[in-house]
């Protein structure tokens, strides 16, 4: 499961930065049928979390009500240089992880 994270490369300490993540995932609702009429099993990302410097700064419970290739944008305060690490897990137990580093000055 690939994901794209967009955060500023650099920020000043105390700045509120915009964090965006887009994960490639079908977010299968469990209400659709395949070509031969069988129900396609639900498979959505249930939990998405973001840790910044090892501390959780954001978490989301998602459901089939979130679009395929889920996109989430939120904000966080630039505290120190380090990594923003995202982790997520879907109904089939598949885990995904992606990280992006930021340099904080001042």
């Amino acid at each position, binding site marked *: 499961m690939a994901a794209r994270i967009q955060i500023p490369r650099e920020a000043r300490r105390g700045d509120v930065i915009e964090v965006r993540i887009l994960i490639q995932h079908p977010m299968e609702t469990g209400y659709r049928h395949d070509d031969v009429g069988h129900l396609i099993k639900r498979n959505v990302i249930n939990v998405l979390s973001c840790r*910044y410097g090892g501390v959780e700064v*954001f978490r*989301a419970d998602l459901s089939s*009500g*979130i679009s395929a290739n889920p996109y989430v*944008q*939120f904000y966080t305060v630039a505290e120190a240089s380090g990594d923003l690490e995202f982790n997520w897990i879907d109904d089939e137990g598949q885990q995904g992880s992606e990280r992006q580093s930021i340099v904080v000055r001042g």
Partner: protein
Amino acid sequence: MKRRDFLAGAVGALALPGTALAQVDPLDPLVRAFANGAAVRKGKVTLVLPQLADNGNSVPIRITVDSPMTAADHVKSIHLYSERNPVPNMANFYLGPRAGKAEIDSRVRLAGSQRVTAVAKLSDGSFWYDSAPIVVTLSACLDES
């Protein structure tokens, strides 16, 4: 609810016009259940949705909560509810003072025209909400798309 309780509530509502107004809001019973009896007031939360969505499979949504986001006064969580989706609680977002700004953007699936509600839980234990109507031309989930 028992008939007696209902009548008692109705009489109380008549006696206090202020609370009577608060009681006629069209809030989803699920939201009430989520707040666990606490008052869910309109305000502080701003929910932005397009008025019309051609395709319910991906509808941009923005929730902003008016909060200083300090350790003493911040938004703990934001909850999204749909009136018509098979799963009414679409998403829950958990934030904290480190968010700096209480704003979330995402894209949701909507099964038909409806009213979407966002509820915020603040650090002082209060609940606030906003809701917005949307017309969905092609609804998600049920159209096998």
